């Protein structure tokens, strides 16, 4: 996304152009073939890996989504090209589906706001503490995702201090709660995926030439205008990759909804899990998985095109 800078040809009138010697061209072709073989060899493990752990499961997922729904584990599952599974799955589960997208979207916005401020501070204000602060941002990754989410159960518990404070401030009714609410789910998502937002944002902000900000200030931009006209557009590659890295897993996540939500915060990931394991209806799970994937890929494509990141640098 940010690599186009290197490929833009810089016009240099002094350069007479590379001399094209025929011998050299032959050599290039020969070494090209050798390089080709090496490249294939080097790529082989990755291709094999992808084939084993992405293409084949993906294929079987598509197959599962089209099974005859009257099958069972006991009798087996027959391929019936039952595209109606998709319609049925959507009709039954559009609500958790929409909820997943909404939770993921809200969490992403929260992450963007918090993450941008954090990344900005790290990039421009921390000086020699930069590395340390970055390590602190990544530190939660050293513990398991599950443990981190479980700890939010304690933080948001009805008798925890967060609830106490909010009740004291009258921001929460006396019998109000945080745990097992939408708020808790979104909070958990935002917490868990914040580093995915901060790191690309930091990478983008950190490489902004400080003189550009001085130049904007010299050209009559107060700090706020300068931010929106220079810093923000230059950080857009980080914003785009950060939001994608946050939104995609957040929309598919169900651990937060399961551990921090209630019976009315069900997300599509929970449905898929339950349909695969407990309910043993792989065709529903398959159809929902495929739909989720298509929707997310579609949203990402539209988003990337709208953000116009390919023209940023």
């Amino acid at each position, binding site marked *: 996304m940010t690599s186009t800078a290197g490929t833009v040809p810089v016009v240099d009138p002094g350069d007479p152009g590379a001399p094209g010697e025929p011998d050299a061209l032959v050599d290039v072709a020969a070494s090209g073939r050798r390089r080709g073989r090496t490249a294939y060899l080097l790529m082989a493990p990755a291709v094999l890996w992808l084939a084993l752990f992405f293409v084949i499961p993906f294929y079987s997922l598509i197959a599962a989504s089209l099974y005859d729904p009257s099958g069972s584990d006991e009798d087996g599952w027959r391929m019936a090209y039952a595209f109606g599974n998709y319609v049925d799955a959507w009709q039954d589960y559009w609500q958790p589906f929409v909820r997943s997208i909404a939770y993921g979207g809200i969490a992403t916005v929260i992450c963007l706001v918090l993450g941008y401020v954090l990344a900005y501070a790290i990039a421009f204000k921390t000086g020699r503490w930069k590395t340390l602060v970055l390590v602190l941002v990544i530190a939660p990754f050293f513990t398991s995702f599950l443990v981190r989410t479980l700890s939010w159960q304690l933080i948001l518990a009805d008798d925890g201090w967060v609830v106490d404070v909010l009740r004291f401030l009258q921001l929460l009714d006396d019998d109000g709660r945080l745990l097992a609410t939408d708020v808790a789910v979104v909070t958990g998502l935002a917490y868990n995926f914040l580093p995915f937002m901060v790191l690309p944002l930091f990478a983008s902000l950190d490489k902004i030439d400080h003189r550009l900000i001085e*130049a904007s*200030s010299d050209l009559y931009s107060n700090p706020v205008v300068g931010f929106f006209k220079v810093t923000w557009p230059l950080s857009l590659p980080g914003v785009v990759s950060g939001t994608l890295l946050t939104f995609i897993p957040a929309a598919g996540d169900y651990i937060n909804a399961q551990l921090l939500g209630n019976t009315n915060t069900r997300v599509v990931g929970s449905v898929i899990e339950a349909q695969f394991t407990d309910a043993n209806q792989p065709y529903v799970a398959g159809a929902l998985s495929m739909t989720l994937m298509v929707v997310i890929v579609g949203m990402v494509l539209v988003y990337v095109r709208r953000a116009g990141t390919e023209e940023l640098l």
Partner: protein
Amino acid sequence: MSLRVEAGVEAADGTAYDGLRLRALTKRFASFTAVRGIDLDVPRGSFFALLGPSGCGKTTTLRMVAGLDAPTSGTIELAGKDITGAKPYRRPVNTVFQNYALFPHLDIFENVAFGLRRRKVDGVDKKVAEMLALVELDAQARKKPAQLSGGQQQRVALARALINEPEVLLLDEPLGALDLKLRRSMQIELKRIQMDVGLTFVHVTHDQEEAMTMADTVAVMNGGLIEQMGSPAELYENPRSTFVANFLGQSNLIEGRVTGRSADEVTVDMHGIGVSVPVGRAHTDGQQGWVGIRPEKVLIGDAGSKLDAPGNTIPGGVVSDVSFVGVSTQYLVRMPWGQELMVFAQNTGRDKIFRHGDPVELSWRPEYAFLLDHSQDVRAGAQEDG
């Protein structure tokens, strides 16, 4: 000096000055002092150069004028208004940054329009088109900066600043990244543009030739202080310090003892040879001094010959090096006291070309010599590459 009637024109000291005026301007960083209380007047409409080696404080001075660094003490006044504490975006000052600092996400047109749009000026399109025409970039308006050559980027940077018609245009080593040939042509173009638009230019550079080519007035900075200020010819012909003598062009500096002072001239004993220096060119009150003479002012002839330079004649030299450079011949002549003096002789065709080992005598007119303070470092400001 035109009379301009504006609110706030009156400066604190009561005199209205319509140019840029720095008073006791000082900048201290945590570990060193970059600028040590300089006073400077830049007349309105002039092309002013701040010349000095890297680390001399010239860029810091420029940044304080731009508002990018806050002075530790002292004042900055522009057209009679004190702008010492003003935010950079509130100053009628624009900067052409070193390496240009063009906005990579905006095309050339928008880069140039940036300042106008921020000030919500009318007729942006027309003004930008005119400005791009002035710097001959009309055809590149929709390209991104990375698609332009260095020289083109430089002109964008200039256009982006100029279009705002600032009271003062600051140029921070604007040609530093260009190759020599391009730099020469851009120097001429910059000077042309400055004369066209009539704005005040303050140009920071470490290139003495660039400063002398372009500027009306040059201030030579060294160690956070202004060593000397004046027109290029004044600085060159009558340097007041060994630093200026060496940094602007080259000088022969010969140790001497003051033997007498009259109303017109100072006489100096230079290793047993008496020479004189006009009073206006003697910049020391001490008993000792450095007699300075530019190499091209020194005449060279056979020992005992009569040279066309009444005044100071120094016999007993031996040619120790000869470089023929076409337009002139550059000699090194070893003097009896061991010092090698530089002599540049024009190839007019009248004079013979000496060879290594030839005994010669040197001579110069007293009005070309200058006398500098003996306490100054004789090598100050000398460039490594000579």
